[in-house]
C-alpha cells in the first residue's frame, strides 16, 4: 500500500491504495467515483477518460502513484466546477448532451463529455471536424455519434452566440430527393 496525496475535482484527497493500481481503480474502488467507466481497460475505448491538468487522458493506463501534485477532473467534478465559476446547474456540455439525447446506454458518455470539455477549454468555437477529431478517442457502440457531435455543436453554438443546428438534423432538412434512376 502507498499513501497518495491527490487533487480530485478540486478537493485534496489522501488515500491509501496498492502501489500498482491505476488511477481508474483508485477513483472507482477507493474513492467511490464510479462515473469514470471501466470498459476495455487497455486504452481502446475512452470510457475511462478523465482530465489531468486539463488534458484528456485514459485513467485505465495512468498509474495513480504518478498523479500526485496533478489536478484530476472526473465527470463528478464538472457540475461543481461550473457552479464554482459562477454558472448554475450542470456544465453546458452536460446540458447539451441532455438536450440532444446524446446517449443510448450512457456508458461512453462521461468520457465523451470530458473530451468535449477539454476541447472547449482550449478552443471555445471549434468546427465540426475539430469536434470529431477531439472525440475520436471515445467509442460509442450505440448511437452512431450523430447526436453526440450535435450536442457538442449545441454547446458551442450557445457559447459563441450562433444559432444552433436543429437537434437531430445531421444534414439540412428539406433537401430535394435525387431523381429516381432508371435501369
Amino acid at each position, binding site marked *: 500500500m*502507498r499513501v497518495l496525496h491527490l487533487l480530485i475535482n478540486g478537493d485534496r484527497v489522501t488515500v491509501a491504495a*496498492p*502501489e*500498482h*493500481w*491505476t488511477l481508474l481503480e483508485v477513483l472507482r474502488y477507493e474513492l467511490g467515483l464510479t462515473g469514470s467507466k*471501466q470498459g476495455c*481497460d*487497455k*486504452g*481502446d475505448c*475512452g470510457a475511462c*477518460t478523465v482530465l489531468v491538468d486539463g*488534458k*484528456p*487522458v*485514459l485513467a*485505465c*493506463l*495512468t*498509474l495513480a*502513484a*504518478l498523479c500526485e501534485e496533478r489536478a484530476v477532473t472526473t465527470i463528478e467534478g464538472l457540475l461543481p466546477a461550473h457552479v464554482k465559476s459562477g454558472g448554475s446547474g450542470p456544465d453546458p456540455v452536460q446540458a447539451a448532451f441532455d438536450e440532444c439525447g446524446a446517449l443510448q446506454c450512457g456508458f461512453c458518455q462521461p468520457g465523451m463529455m470530458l*473530451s468535449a470539455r477539454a476541447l472547449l477549454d482550449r478552443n471555445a468555437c471549434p468546427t465540426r471536424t475539430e469536434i*470529431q*477529431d*477531439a472525440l*475520436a*478517442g*471515445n*467509442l460509442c457502440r450505440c448511437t452512431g455519434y450523430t447526436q453526440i457531435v450535435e450536442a457538442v455543436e449545441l454547446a458551442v453554438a450557445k457559447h459563441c452566440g450562433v444559432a444552433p443546428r436543429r437537434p437531430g438534423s445531421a444534414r439540412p432538412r428539406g433537401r430535394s430527393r435525387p431523381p429516381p434512376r432508371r435501369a
Partner: protein
Amino acid sequence: MLRLPKFEVRTPESLDAALALLAEFGPDARVIAGGTDLVPNMKHELVTPRIVVSLARIPELRGVGDAGAGWLRLGAMTSLADVAADARVRAQAPALAQAAGLVAGPQLRTMGTLGGNVLLDTRCQWYNQTYFWREALGFCLKKDGTLCHVVEGGSKCVAAASNDTAPALMTLRAELVFVGPQGRRVTPIDDLWLADGAANKKCASDELLVEVRLPPTGPGHRGAYGKLRERASIDFPLLGVATRIELDARGTITDADVVLTALQARPVRVKRAAELLLGVRAEGDAFLAAARAVADQAHRQAHPMPNIPGDAEWRRAMVPVYVRRTLEAAARGAGPVHAV
C-alpha cells in the same frame, strides 16, 4: 477487467538517479514514460517488472529546442500531441509532425511520448493478448513459448514494428541520444533496428533514450506521412508510409526517401526511391510516372504478415496506393494521407 501485476513505482528527479535505479535493479526494472504501451503490456503479463521507474519528474527530458547548427532536439518525454503541434517540427520535419498527429487517439497522444513511440514494442495478434489467452494456445515464440502461430515452423519472431514516428524519423535521418552507464551514445535511427520481432531494437536495458535530434532541412524539403487503418482513431498502423523529397530552386528533385512500417519486424526502406525520382520535377505527368515506379518497387518489397488486424492481401494492395499518394502529398506540401 484487467489487473496489473504487483510492482513498486519510483519517481527519480534526475537522470543520474534514474540510471542508478536501472543499474541497481537490472532486468527487474522497466521505464515508464507515457505508459500507453507498457501498461497494457503489463496488464497482459507480457512484461512483469518488480520496479517501474517513471521519467515524468525529469524536466530536461521534455520539450522541443534548438540543438545548434540548425539541428532540432526533441526530448524523449515530449508528448506526441506536443510534437504534432510544434511549429518548428511542422516546418522542419512535416512528416514527423503528421506521423505523431496520427498516432492512436487524442488521449493516447496526450499521454504517449516520442521516445516511447520510437521504442514501442512490436505487435502481433498472438502476442498482445492476456496471459489466459496465450496460455490456452501454448504461448508463442516472442513470449513464454517456442512456437510461432504466424509462420508454420518459423524460428524467428515476425511481430510487426508498429511505431508511426519511426519511418518518418528514418526519412529525416534523425539521431537518437542514449545515456547509459558508459555515458552518452549517439546513433542514427537506421542503426537501431534488428529484423527480429522478439527484440527489434539495439538498446540495452540499463540505457535511456533521452533525446531525438533532427538535422536541419532547407526550403526545398518536403515530407508527408500516410497511414492505413480501419477507423480514424486509436488504431495502430496497418501500414505506415513516410516520404521525403528534396527540391532545388527550380522544383527538381535532388533527393528522396520512402520508408514503410507495420509490414514486418522493422521499418523497411523502399529501394531505389531516390534513383527513380532524381532529376524529375515534382509535378505533372513525369512526377506521377516516377512516383508510380517507386510505388511498384514498394509493392514488390512488401509482404505483410497476417499477424496484425486487417486482411494481409488488402494491406499489400494498399502499399503502392499509399506510397504514390504520400509522395504526391509531399510534393504538394500537403498531407497526411489517411482515408478515414
